[in-house]
């Protein structure tokens, strides 16, 4: 959605699991594009793909992969520099969420893709919904599986187009059982893990809703640019009241606790849907931020960096009269409408001493909305 016309545009084929046909769809569209716009190359393509996908790939010009030796084995990576030299109009790059082999110039494939986009090359790529950073907790809540390789939301957000690649779970399971997705020895593991029972349906629904949301966001961007007015799906009923609403402002409270990452992701997601402003705040009780114990400081800095990577403004303030008080005062001063805090789990003793931070905030912020975000790190049934 960048106005910068020299930058290449990005198209993402979004699926809900391996085998839904993202790559196949991308390659099929790529072949059609060869006829229309010419100069299309296959910049990266999983070499162990399914036969029908392989056949599609052979019809396209491929840029040879870079072979990298790591611990005595040969791995294939996209040769970004070779793609730049080839200068295609469109480069097809499979698996956006891929992590490059150690020793590569850039550690993530999405970083390689940025290089191509910056050079003015249009990129088409594939990814699954579970690789979107801000959906990480929801995916874990659905599947019980923690997905490690994620792509920052900002990368997906800047894509000009998101295409949902849909298939029914039944068809996907048939493909899996036919051995069309994984090798036979992997199938059993997949059936009891990611491909289990209701997981696929839930991930599919998440993908469809995410795709609808991405379409909605691109509509707002276009409308703002063109002054276009059309009743939006997401404003269908409240169009009379929605525009007069003061803008919501969300404040996310940062701590060194690992649950903060989840809090940031949830805050970002809610802010996106409500078209709200979003700020992250850390309160230190030491006279200076720098005086925090190194471990705590590093954890906080990591969370602040993460917030900024999701386009959330960050602030650090001192609060010698108590953290909860400082958070609530900051919120009042900055017309915050909603404070996001993690649910801190503490024992009875701490509660008796009144040491539960979450509860302090709820008590102090009687004039504000406080959202206590649930711990979604535990999977279903656990």
């Amino acid at each position: 959605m960048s106005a910068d016309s020299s930058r290449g545009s990005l198209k993402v084929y979004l699926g809900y699991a391996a085998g839904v046909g993202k790559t196949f769809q991308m390659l099929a569209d790529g072949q059609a594009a060869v006829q229309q716009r010419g100069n299309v190359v296959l910049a990266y393509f999983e070499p162990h793909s399914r036969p029908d996908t392989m056949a599609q790939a052979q019809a396209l010009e491929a840029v040879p992969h870079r072979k990298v030796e790591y611990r005595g084995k040969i791995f294939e990576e996209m040769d970004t520099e070779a793609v730049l030299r080839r200068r295609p109009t469109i480069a097809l790059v499979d698996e956006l969420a891929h992590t490059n082999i150690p020793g590569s110039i850039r550690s993530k494939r999405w970083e390689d893709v940025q290089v191509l986009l910056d050079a003015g090359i249009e990129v088409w790529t594939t990814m699954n919904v579970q690789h979107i950073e801000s959906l990480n907790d929801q995916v874990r809540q659905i599947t019980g599986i923690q997905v490690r390789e994620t792509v920052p939301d900002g990368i997906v957000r800047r894509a000009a187009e998101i295409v949902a690649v849909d298939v029914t779970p039944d068809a996907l399971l048939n493909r899996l059982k036919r051995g069309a997705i994984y090798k036979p020895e992997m199938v059993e593991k997949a059936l009891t893990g990611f491909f289990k029972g209701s997981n696929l349906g839930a991930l599919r629904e998440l993908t469809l809703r995410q795709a609808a949301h991405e379409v909605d966001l691109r509509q707002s961007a276009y409308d703002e640019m063109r002054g276009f007015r059309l009743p939006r799906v997401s404003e269908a009923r409240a169009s009379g009241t929605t525009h007069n609403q003061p803008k919501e402002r969300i404040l996310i409270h940062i701590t060194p606790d690992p649950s903060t990452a989840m809090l940031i992701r949830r805050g970002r997601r809610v802010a996106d849907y409500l078209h709200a402003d979003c700020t992250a705040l850390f309160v230190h009780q030491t006279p200076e931020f720098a005086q925090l114990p190194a471990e705590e400081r590093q954890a906080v800095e990591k969370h602040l960096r993460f917030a900024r990577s999701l386009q959330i403004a960050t602030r650090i303030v001192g609060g010698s009269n108590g953290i909860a008080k400082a958070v609530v005062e900051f919120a009042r001063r900055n017309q915050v409408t909603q404070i996001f805090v993690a649910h801190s789990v503490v024992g009875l003793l701490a509660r008796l001493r009144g040491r539960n931070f979450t509860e302090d905030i709820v008590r102090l912020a009687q004039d504000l909305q406080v959202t206590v975000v649930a711990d979604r790190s535990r999977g279903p049934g656990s």
Partner: protein
Amino acid sequence: MTGYTFTGSQKMRLSELPRPSPERLLKQVQAEESKRWGAKLKIFLGYAPGVGKSYRMLDEARRRHERGEDVVVGVVQGQQSEEVQALLRRLEIIPPFQTPEGEAIDLNAILGRAPQVCVIDPLAARNPSGSRHAYRWQDVQELLRNGISVLSSVNLLHVEEYKNKVQAITGKDTTQTIPKSFLLAADDIVIVDVPPDLCLWRQGEKLTSTGISNSQERQLSELRELALLLTAEVVDAQLESYVHAHGIEPVFGAHERFLLCLTPHSNAPAMIESGERNKERFQGELYTVYVCEPGRSKRDRVMIRKYFDAAQKAGAATEILESDDPISAIVEYAREKRITQIFIGHSTHNTWRDRVFGDPVLRLIREAEGIDVRVFPH
């Protein structure tokens, strides 16, 4: 994953069934299910002409044919691209009747031929007068009843409940529709999603490939969002029946569901208004409960009735729970409905006792595991 087993919580959606009698159609649908010998209905949904529904559907027919399934084509759309024609040449066709009023599938010929799978495209069509059934979707039901699986496709414009919305956006109208309940009852639905520029290109326009770049693409994008959300709704209904049928823990997360806990003393108007906005922005669902504790006054009941009216206008389902333990009742209800966010008012109690042991809001926060709790000011 069958969509025919309607469960309790899906009853709500039955209100959206077509006239004249929802109950009758449901009975009919359920009765048919039992006679179908495993025949399945799969529908390919597109948001506009040119997304490639027919191609996707016929390509599946071809793949099934190549894997040894007995596939025939009952009827296909009039105008076909070269790719679609190429697929059709590889499939057996049972020619439809041509009448001055339009085409009608040759039901007897298909039943006599008794294939495993029959392609019927498009799904929304009115049959010429004198046909056995008034609508093509009724022909499809007859095929299914006779154990023949059906692959079919439909455009968003031709779903009755979306007809007016699509017309408001594009100006296009139609008299050929199928009820939305037919989609909800299908065994499988697949959305065929392409960017609007590609859809327009197939209709002869220029490719832009940079997202939404003109007002025509902007209109299509609106339809696209509707179609994605409709598909998500069907998937959600299927998921719910699956979860019920297998007696497994409800799955959280994919769809936002908001629960407003109203009391006579809460700032209900603000909570309802926020609930409505959240519901729309997230395209989620809104529920409202009031937990009736013994000994509430008449004045309280009047207030609650007023709030419930407002909540219903905002599109919320409302329910009165009876319990002397409101927090447990709320948490239990929230789990059953797969709620993702509970809205509650700040406690007005402020005794030391409440603070330490029983402030209801703090108790809710502790007990609503896996669910966000949003506390509202008075």
